[in-house]
Protein backbone atom coordinates (compact mmCIF):
# COMPACT_ATOMS: atom_id res chain seq x y z
CA UNK A 1 0.00 0.00 0.00
CA UNK A 2 1.28 3.46 -0.94
CA UNK A 3 2.31 5.62 1.99
CA UNK A 4 3.24 9.27 2.52
CA UNK A 5 4.70 10.65 5.75
CA UNK A 6 5.07 14.36 6.34
CA UNK A 7 7.08 16.13 8.99
CA UNK A 8 6.83 18.09 11.10
CA UNK A 9 3.12 17.75 11.84
CA UNK A 10 2.98 21.40 12.76
CA UNK A 11 5.25 24.36 13.31
CA UNK A 12 5.05 27.99 14.28
CA UNK A 13 7.50 30.51 12.84
CA UNK A 14 7.91 34.27 12.80
CA UNK A 15 7.28 36.29 9.69
CA UNK A 16 10.44 36.45 7.61
CA UNK A 17 11.73 33.02 8.67
CA UNK A 18 12.57 30.27 6.20
CA UNK A 19 10.89 26.90 6.63
CA UNK A 20 11.49 23.45 5.19
CA UNK A 21 8.70 20.91 5.07
CA UNK A 22 9.49 17.24 4.55
CA UNK A 23 7.70 14.48 2.71
CA UNK A 24 8.83 10.86 2.45
CA UNK A 25 6.96 8.27 0.48
CA UNK A 26 6.60 4.63 -0.47
CA UNK A 27 4.79 3.90 -3.71
CA UNK A 28 4.70 0.75 -5.79
CA UNK A 29 5.11 2.43 -9.16
CA UNK A 30 5.95 6.12 -8.82
CA UNK A 31 4.81 8.65 -11.40
CA UNK A 32 4.77 12.03 -9.65
CA UNK A 33 4.75 13.86 -6.32
CA UNK A 34 2.51 16.85 -5.74
CA UNK A 35 2.38 19.62 -3.15
CA UNK A 36 -0.83 21.40 -2.22
CA UNK A 37 -1.67 24.29 0.11
CA UNK A 38 -4.94 24.00 2.03
CA UNK A 39 -6.16 27.10 3.82
CA UNK A 40 -9.82 26.43 4.43
CA UNK A 41 -11.31 23.85 2.12
CA UNK A 42 -9.97 23.47 -1.41
CA UNK A 43 -6.35 22.29 -1.63
CA UNK A 44 -4.62 24.56 -4.13
CA UNK A 45 -1.92 23.16 -6.40
CA UNK A 46 1.68 24.24 -5.80
CA UNK A 47 4.02 21.87 -7.60
CA UNK A 48 4.17 18.58 -9.45
CA UNK A 49 7.56 16.84 -9.49
CA UNK A 50 8.41 13.90 -11.67
CA UNK A 51 12.16 14.11 -12.14
CA UNK A 52 14.75 13.74 -9.45
CA UNK A 53 17.07 16.61 -8.59
CA UNK A 54 15.25 19.31 -10.53
CA UNK A 55 14.08 22.20 -8.39
CA UNK A 56 10.75 23.81 -9.11
CA UNK A 57 10.28 27.41 -8.02
CA UNK A 58 7.38 29.77 -7.75
CA UNK A 59 8.16 33.03 -6.04
CA UNK A 60 9.24 32.33 -2.46
CA UNK A 61 8.30 28.66 -2.70
CA UNK A 62 10.51 25.93 -4.09
CA UNK A 63 10.51 22.15 -4.06
CA UNK A 64 12.84 19.35 -5.00
CA UNK A 65 12.44 15.61 -5.34
CA UNK A 66 14.94 12.84 -4.54
CA UNK A 67 13.69 9.65 -6.17
CA UNK A 68 16.59 7.58 -4.87
CA UNK A 69 15.95 8.45 -1.22
CA UNK A 70 12.16 8.69 -1.75
CA UNK A 71 11.58 12.14 -0.34
CA UNK A 72 10.76 15.70 -1.25
CA UNK A 73 11.12 19.04 0.50
CA UNK A 74 9.12 22.21 0.20
CA UNK A 75 10.95 25.41 1.09
CA UNK A 76 9.29 28.71 1.86
CA UNK A 77 11.57 31.72 2.25
CA UNK A 78 10.71 35.06 3.84
CA UNK A 79 7.47 33.65 5.22
CA UNK A 80 4.39 35.84 5.47
CA UNK A 81 1.22 35.47 7.53
CA UNK A 82 -0.58 34.53 4.32
CA UNK A 83 1.55 31.40 4.16
CA UNK A 84 -0.28 30.04 7.21
CA UNK A 85 -2.01 26.87 6.02
CA UNK A 86 -1.81 23.10 5.92
CA UNK A 87 0.66 21.88 3.31
CA UNK A 88 -0.19 18.52 1.81
CA UNK A 89 2.13 16.16 -0.03
CA UNK A 90 0.71 13.46 -2.31
CA UNK A 91 2.08 10.78 -4.63
CA UNK A 92 0.52 9.55 -7.84
CA UNK A 93 1.26 6.06 -9.11
CA UNK A 94 1.82 5.14 -12.73
CA UNK A 95 -1.09 3.46 -14.45
CA UNK A 96 -4.49 4.48 -15.61
CA UNK A 97 -6.06 5.39 -12.28
CA UNK A 98 -5.23 8.81 -10.87
CA UNK A 99 -5.25 7.78 -7.24
CA UNK A 100 -3.42 10.31 -5.12
CA UNK A 101 -2.16 9.13 -1.74
CA UNK A 102 -1.83 12.05 0.67
CA UNK A 103 0.11 12.55 3.85
CA UNK A 104 -1.56 14.01 6.91
CA UNK A 105 -0.11 17.41 6.15
CA UNK A 106 2.06 19.96 7.94
CA UNK A 107 0.22 22.79 9.66
CA UNK A 108 2.26 25.99 9.34
CA UNK A 109 1.45 29.06 11.38
CA UNK A 110 3.33 32.28 10.64
CA UNK A 111 3.13 34.90 13.38
CA UNK A 112 4.01 38.58 13.34
Amino acid at each position, binding site marked *: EDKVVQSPLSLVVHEGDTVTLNCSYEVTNFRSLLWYKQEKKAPTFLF*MLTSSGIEKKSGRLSSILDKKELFSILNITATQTGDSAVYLCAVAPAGTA*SKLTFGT*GTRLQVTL
Partner: protein
Amino acid sequence: DAGVTQSPTHLIKTRGQHVTLRCSPISGHKSVSWYQQVLGQGPQFIFQYYEKEERGRGNFPDRFSARQFPNYSSELNVNALLLGDSALYLCASSRTDRGMSGYTFGSGTRLTVV
Protein backbone atom coordinates in the same frame (compact mmCIF):
# COMPACT_ATOMS: atom_id res chain seq x y z
CA ASP B 1 -13.21 29.79 -16.56
CA ALA B 2 -15.08 28.49 -13.56
CA GLY B 3 -13.14 26.18 -11.29
CA VAL B 4 -14.38 22.88 -9.92
CA THR B 5 -17.79 23.47 -8.37
CA GLN B 6 -19.32 21.29 -5.69
CA SER B 7 -22.77 21.31 -4.15
CA PRO B 8 -24.04 21.60 -1.55
CA THR B 9 -21.35 23.34 0.51
CA HIS B 10 -22.70 22.06 3.82
CA LEU B 11 -25.04 19.24 4.70
CA ILE B 12 -26.39 17.73 7.91
CA LYS B 13 -27.86 14.23 7.78
CA THR B 14 -29.09 11.68 10.28
CA ARG B 15 -27.58 8.22 10.70
CA GLY B 16 -29.07 5.75 8.25
CA GLN B 17 -30.01 8.36 5.66
CA HIS B 18 -28.72 8.64 2.13
CA VAL B 19 -26.80 11.57 0.64
CA THR B 20 -25.89 12.71 -2.88
CA LEU B 21 -23.01 15.09 -3.48
CA ARG B 22 -22.42 16.79 -6.82
CA CYS B 23 -19.36 17.98 -8.72
CA SER B 24 -18.86 19.90 -11.95
CA PRO B 25 -15.31 19.74 -13.33
CA ILE B 26 -13.43 22.48 -15.08
CA SER B 27 -14.50 22.86 -18.70
CA GLY B 28 -12.44 20.49 -20.83
CA HIS B 29 -11.58 18.19 -17.94
CA LYS B 30 -12.83 14.66 -18.46
CA SER B 31 -11.64 13.04 -15.23
CA VAL B 32 -13.29 13.45 -11.83
CA SER B 33 -11.98 11.99 -8.59
CA TRP B 34 -13.60 11.97 -5.15
CA TYR B 35 -11.77 12.21 -1.84
CA GLN B 36 -12.84 12.06 1.80
CA GLN B 37 -10.98 14.26 4.28
CA VAL B 38 -11.59 13.59 7.94
CA LEU B 39 -10.60 16.40 10.31
CA GLY B 40 -6.87 16.44 10.90
CA GLN B 41 -6.08 13.97 8.13
CA GLY B 42 -5.09 14.18 4.50
CA PRO B 43 -7.67 13.47 1.77
CA GLN B 44 -8.33 9.78 1.11
CA PHE B 45 -9.14 8.52 -2.38
CA ILE B 46 -12.66 7.17 -2.93
CA PHE B 47 -13.26 6.96 -6.70
CA GLN B 48 -11.97 8.13 -10.06
CA TYR B 49 -14.12 8.40 -13.18
CA TYR B 50 -12.94 9.11 -16.70
CA GLU B 51 -15.17 9.26 -19.75
CA LYS B 52 -18.05 7.94 -17.61
CA GLU B 53 -16.15 4.81 -16.62
CA GLU B 54 -14.85 3.95 -13.17
CA ARG B 55 -11.06 3.91 -13.35
CA GLY B 56 -10.19 3.47 -9.70
CA ARG B 57 -11.74 2.73 -6.33
CA GLY B 58 -10.29 3.23 -2.85
CA ASN B 59 -10.85 1.19 0.30
CA PHE B 60 -14.40 2.29 0.99
CA PRO B 61 -17.45 0.10 1.62
CA ASP B 62 -20.11 -0.58 -0.98
CA ARG B 63 -22.29 2.05 0.67
CA PHE B 64 -20.25 4.52 -1.38
CA SER B 65 -21.01 4.74 -5.09
CA ALA B 66 -20.51 7.28 -7.83
CA ARG B 67 -21.22 7.96 -11.47
CA GLN B 68 -20.19 10.38 -14.18
CA PHE B 69 -22.56 11.93 -16.67
CA PRO B 70 -22.07 12.71 -20.39
CA ASN B 71 -21.22 16.33 -19.52
CA TYR B 72 -18.46 14.96 -17.20
CA SER B 73 -20.17 16.12 -14.02
CA SER B 74 -20.30 13.54 -11.26
CA GLU B 75 -22.31 12.43 -8.25
CA LEU B 76 -21.12 10.67 -5.13
CA ASN B 77 -23.76 8.70 -3.27
CA VAL B 78 -23.48 7.38 0.26
CA ASN B 79 -26.13 5.07 1.68
CA ALA B 80 -26.89 4.12 5.28
CA LEU B 81 -24.85 7.00 6.69
CA LEU B 82 -22.71 6.40 9.77
CA LEU B 83 -21.32 8.96 12.19
CA GLY B 84 -17.87 8.15 10.82
CA ASP B 85 -18.89 9.41 7.39
CA SER B 86 -18.75 12.97 8.73
CA ALA B 87 -16.01 14.62 6.70
CA LEU B 88 -15.14 17.10 3.98
CA TYR B 89 -15.78 15.49 0.59
CA LEU B 90 -13.54 16.88 -2.12
CA CYS B 91 -13.84 16.54 -5.86
CA ALA B 92 -10.83 16.94 -8.13
CA SER B 93 -10.81 17.24 -11.89
CA SER B 94 -8.07 16.74 -14.45
CA ARG B 95 -7.83 16.80 -18.21
CA THR B 96 -6.92 13.16 -18.59
CA ASP B 97 -7.26 9.99 -16.58
CA ARG B 98 -3.60 10.13 -15.62
CA GLY B 99 -3.65 13.70 -14.38
CA MET B 100 -0.39 14.61 -16.04
CA SER B 101 -1.42 18.26 -16.13
CA GLY B 102 -2.31 18.22 -12.46
CA TYR B 103 -5.47 18.01 -10.43
CA THR B 104 -7.71 20.92 -9.43
CA PHE B 105 -9.83 20.56 -6.31
CA GLY B 106 -13.20 22.03 -5.53
CA SER B 107 -14.01 23.65 -2.19
CA GLY B 108 -15.73 20.52 -1.00
CA THR B 109 -18.95 19.54 0.71
CA ARG B 110 -18.87 19.45 4.52
CA LEU B 111 -21.06 16.51 5.57
CA THR B 112 -22.08 16.15 9.19
CA VAL B 113 -23.88 12.98 10.26
CA VAL B 114 -25.75 13.21 13.56
